[in-house]
């Protein structure tokens, strides 16, 4: 008996419509993972660096030996400008300059200064792996020098033995020269600044999207759709009304969620760096662009949801249809969190750009670095996407699909303009 019930439940739940979204998402996630690459492998890779030794003393020799052993040195000379150019061309991580008097300072019980010029390519979590490996190299240099200091003489200041070098850092990132920050520090700042927005956008899309798809499912389940469609109101007004109504519900729900989430995030806030000091602060027009980007992405998401909602047979099937939207929002969120738009492979870049929700997720970071074309291009694309989806939705509303589940081609793709007028 119980077997009979299990069999019935399985047959009812395990349908093609529930299976396809899962399979598609599994394939997409697998593809994304493979394309982004393996963190472990990248941690083991030797970082590509350039070295300029202007000291040529005992301790700089130790530093050089460590760096040459543990890194792939593509420039080893005396000209910092030339070295920087070489590192840039070879897609390296940093140029390390050991200035004159490095060894002499250490002998005089002062930390030796190492100038590090970071070439930062992206601000995603995965983009900082190489710089993390270089940070490890510097630790190895310190250990080598400490070991030498201990062996040579016990009169060195213990503080110097523990930290024999100090860094002077400059980071080059997307045309900006930021002094006093390493690429890791800058990456952390940008990541923490841009982690909240992807989560807000994701929650907003999922909650508002679920509202609009469920609304379609409920209209069918409660048998109210037919009445609605015979009222003297344009189909486009019904579609827009549903989108705006759901956007309001979604925004209220996302706001409630974000109150809790922002409290949670603030407990991790450790950086007291003022972004304005480094030319990374956002102005009023930047915030306006972020707002527009968020609004257009929300409309795009909801217009896509309403098209999906037309496939809902009832409230339950509507819940299944939310899944593709959730997956798209999560793909956007994870990719924009872990990788910078400029450092992901071209195929993923197209995918990320094509998903409308990605644009507000990337907007804040892009605007910090004055990448206006990406943000404005994203807004334009999202607006066009929204209009196309609304036109498709209105055409479906004018067809038999909503009531019968099938479409007469002539009705949907018939005379241009007729659909929106009605």
């Amino acid at each position: 008996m119980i077997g009979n019930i299990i069999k019935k439940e399985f047959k009812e739940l395990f349908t093609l419509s529930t299976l396809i979204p899962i399979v598609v998402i599994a394939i997409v996630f697998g593809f994304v993972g493979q394309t982004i690459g393996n963190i472990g492998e990248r941690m083991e890779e030797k970082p590509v660096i350039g070295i300029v030794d202007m000291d040529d003393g005992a301790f700089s020799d130790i530093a050089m030996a460590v760096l040459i052993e543990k890194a792939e040195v593509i420039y080893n000379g005396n000209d910092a400008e030339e070295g920087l150019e070489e590192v840039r061309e070879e897609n390296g991580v940093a140029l390390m300059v050991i200035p004159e008097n490095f060894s002499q300072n250490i002998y005089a019980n002062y930390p030796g200064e190492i100038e590090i010029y970071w070439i930062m390519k992206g601000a995603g979590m995965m983009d900082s792996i190489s710089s993390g490996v270089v940070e490890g190299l510097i630790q190895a240099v310190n250990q080598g020098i400490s070991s030498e200091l201990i062996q040579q003489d016990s009169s060195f200041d213990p503080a110097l033995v523990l930290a024999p070098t100090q860094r002077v850092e400059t980071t080059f990132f997307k045309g900006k020269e930021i002094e006093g920050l390493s690429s890791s520090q800058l990456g952390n700042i940008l990541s923490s600044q841009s982690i909240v927005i992807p989560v807000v956008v994701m929650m907003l899309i999922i909650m508002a999207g679920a509202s609009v798809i469920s609304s379609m499912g409920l209209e069918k389940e409660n048998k109210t759709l037919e009445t609605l469609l015979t009222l003297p109101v344009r189909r486009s007004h019904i579609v827009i009304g549903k989108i705006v109504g759901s956007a309001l519900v979604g925004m209220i729900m996302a706001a409630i969620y974000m109150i809790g989430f922002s409290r949670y995030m603030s407990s991790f806030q450790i950086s007291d760096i003022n972004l304005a000091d480094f030319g990374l602060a956002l102005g009023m027009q930047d915030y306006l662009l972020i707002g527009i980007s968020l609004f257009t992405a929300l409309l795009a998401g909801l217009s896509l949801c309403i098209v999906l909602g037309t496939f809902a047979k009832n409230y339950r099937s509507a819940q299944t249809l939310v899944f593709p939207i959730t997956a798209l929002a999560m793909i956007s969120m994870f990719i924009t969190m872990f990788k910078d738009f400029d450092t992901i492979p071209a195929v993923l870049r197209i995918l990320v750009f094509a998903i409308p929700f990605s644009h507000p997720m990337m907007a804040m970071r892009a605007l910090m670095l004055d990448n206006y074309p990406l943000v404005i291009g994203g807004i334009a694309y999202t607006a066009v996407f929204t209009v196309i989806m609304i036109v498709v939705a209105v055409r479906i509303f004018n067809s038999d699909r909503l009531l019968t589940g099938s479409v007469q081609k002539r009705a949907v793709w018939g005379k241009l303009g007729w659909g929106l007028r009605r």
Partner: protein
Amino acid sequence: MKAVEVRELVKDYGNLRAINGISFEVNEGEIFGLIGPNGAGKTTALRVIATLLQITSGSVTVFGYEIPKEAGEVRKIISYLPEEAGAYKNLTGKEYLNFIAKFFGEGEKFQNIVQRGLEIGNLGERINDKVDTYSKGMTRRLLVGRALMVNPRLAILDEPTSGLDVVNAQEVRRIINSSVEAGVAVLLSSHNMLEVELLCHRIALINDGRIVASGTATELKKGYDAGNIEEVFVKAIK
């Protein structure tokens, strides 16, 4: 002017022909009944006239407005009550009537429409309760009120008394009759032959997407030498 003119209407769902070239007219101020068994094509015909479905071939006009070309104009003068229709469960009955009335008028006109809906629905204090708490009969009365409160020139009623008990069904029939006295044309479908005989001025018998007979109840009974419409139907489809 004819309230409805249907000429050689064909409606296909993919390979399935649901309506196969039917023609009929509904006059102003009359109740016209489409009767037939389940799956005969009654609901499809009503949905086409209510501008919900596309026409495969043939023509349909409502008070001279052509469907689908002038569907927007048609929607201003019709009211459609689907079979097994529902109302928004999170709204009260009053809120539901308000929602619908706003599409048809503002100010005093809006108030009059709602007042008429309240009178037709006759749900008393329960009109302020959520629709979710209504019985099937109460929901149907609310929906009949909704359909007729807007003073449509044509009311399209699909199985208006479906699922109702005798008392509620009789009340709904009374409401339909009084609307016709006020000038509304009614096109209704039913598989309840007795109800149609009682209510309709003229009748069309539909089977397998075709109209097999039409006329007044008296004409049909006389023509088929039958005691009631049910007998007429059985003889007509033989």
